[in-house]
């Protein structure tokens, strides 16, 4: 059993390693480097336009939001393409007959993409922190926690993208994943609207039912957004980060498990 787990991890990491290698060879990191440089330049330019005393706020808020958005874009685009490309190019014909479980292939793709997201996050964060330094703004204490949460959010979205790509085309998977991201980002708003005294969601009816369903099923992505805390210099505790990571881990496991189940039953004809 112990050997079985070690073997499984070894096979998963073989796929993960190849996924990272593919990103490097396809010059994905070059694009990420350019994006990071763009972030530095645009942050500095934006902060110059800001109202006096608001430059710090703009730089901190914009930097974190841009990093987060970039991570989501990478997670969706790469997540929906990774599995599909292997099916479309028939490279899976060489991999799947080897002694590897299809769930390990899915897990390997996910772990590899986490590595790519981690590397791109570091590049973007470096650009962001450089722009703060250039403007003489002290780096807020909660930056490592905030970055970890951005990464966790991207991981969750990656798992959603891989889940959809196990049975749908890249375009559909992209649309569905973006949909999950939008609803997930709006869960807090939906909850507030349901608790309000007036409005469509305040009273019982089909709209409220749908909203209740969405709140129950979709991940609440606001958990991973600590931009306000950073601006207001409110500490983000590691306990909060840990709990958020657990929340992320649960959803990742859920989506990857269903994705692997669908992938397991798939014919490669």
């Amino acid at each position, binding site marked *: 059993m112990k050997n079985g787990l070690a073997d499984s991890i070894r096979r998963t990491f073989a796929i993960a390693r190849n996924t990272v290698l593919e990103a490097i*060879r396809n010059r994905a990191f070059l694009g990420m480097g350019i994006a990071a440089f763009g972030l530095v330049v645009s942050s500095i330019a934006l902060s110059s336009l800001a109202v006096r005393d608001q430059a710090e706020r703009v730089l901190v808020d914009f930097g974190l939001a841009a990093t987060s958005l970039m991570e989501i874009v990478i997670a969706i685009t790469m997540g929906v393409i990774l599995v599909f490309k292997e099916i479309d190019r028939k490279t899976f014909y060489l991999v799947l*007959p*080897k002694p*590897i479980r299809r769930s390990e292939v899915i897990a390997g793709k996910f772990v590899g993409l986490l590595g790519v997201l981690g590397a791109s996050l570091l590049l973007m964060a470096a650009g962001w922190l450089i722009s703060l330094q250039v403007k003489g703004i002290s780096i807020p204490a909660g930056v490592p926690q905030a970055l970890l949460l951005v990464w966790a959010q991207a991981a969750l979205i990656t798992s959603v993208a891989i889940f959809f790509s196990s049975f749908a085309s890249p375009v559909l998977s992209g649309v569905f994943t973006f949909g999950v991201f939008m609803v997930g980002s709006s869960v807090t708003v939906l909850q507030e609207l349901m608790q309000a005294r007036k409005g469509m969601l305040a009273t019982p009816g089909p709209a409220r039912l749908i909203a209740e369903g969405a709140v129950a099923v979709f991940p609440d992505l606001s958990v991973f957004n600590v931009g306000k805390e950073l601006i207001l210099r409110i500490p983000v505790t590691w306990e909060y980060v840990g709990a958020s990571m657990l929340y992320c881990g649960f959803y990742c496991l859920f989506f990857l498990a269903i994705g692997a189940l669908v992938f397991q039953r798939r014919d490669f004809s």
Partner: protein
Amino acid sequence: MRSGPGRSAAHGLIPFLVAAGHREADLDEIIRVENLSKTFRTPFRRKRVDAVSNVSFVVRRGEIFGFLGPNGAGKTTTIKMLTGLIQPTAGTVSMLGGGPADLSVRARIGFLPEQPYFYDYLTPVELLDVFGRIFGIPARIRKERIESLLTQVGLFEARNRTLRKFSKGMLQRTGIAQALLNDPELVILDEPLSGLDPVGRKEVNDLIATLRQQGKTIFFSSHILADIERLCDRVVILDRGVTKAAGTLSELLTSDSGEREILAGGITDVSGLNGLDGVVRCETYGTDAVRIVCESAASDRLVGTLLKAGGTILGVNDRRISLEQLFVSRTIREKSCPATDNEGEVRGVSE
């Protein structure tokens, strides 16, 4: 019953297996396919397409087994079921004592898909390294085996070039190298000779022969008949998903002709023989012999006639036909009346 000293565990197991209903010969079976079928449904109209129907065969240890058929015969579909890429609609596949999904079975199989597609951003060394890691081959052995395999398939000089710069023949060789990476007991090759020039084909043929000498079992599909005839011990001919012929080459090539060849001495006049019932043709052989090709059923009677005429029988043999003749007779002649299933739909899909 306890095994005596010096008896291997496997030897002690044989009576048990026999008692349990297994034939002793089963231990030599590497692949057993029974009534294998695959039906696809067309995307919108959901029409049934029977790609493979009730195919059965056995591949034994150490033999080269040829899987023959025209394009669209169902060869690749069958191979995909053997390798677990698609699930059969009906029937069973047993390989090396397990099923296609067993990891321990897959670890002992090497597979080359038809027209293999690779991660073109990798070099052959990196590609084999990824697969070596999946197989769990230790780093040092992996490195040595990769170098040895690339030398064997003639790609050592190109080992650091990315696969996107490889020709079709080079990619095919890379595919063969990856199929042999785990030193497999069973090698499944789907059209291994396609895309190769005559020199490349000869090299792959030699490689297959070498693998047999090493005791490996080879299952390979092809429609290059000359290579199948030269290499294979047994074949299955598939057409539109249905088995058209199966057996050893000598059985198939002699039984299918339905003709015998009689060599008779002491007779030089062939004109009288040509008119005899059952004689297909007759010709002089050397200075005082004749060779008579006749229908198998008429051979005994003709032998009697020749002996009465004062001749001596030098030999009677079943007449062999070429594999090409067999292939054509079992496949092309039926093209004009396509096989249909119970629902009246045409069998077979493109592979």
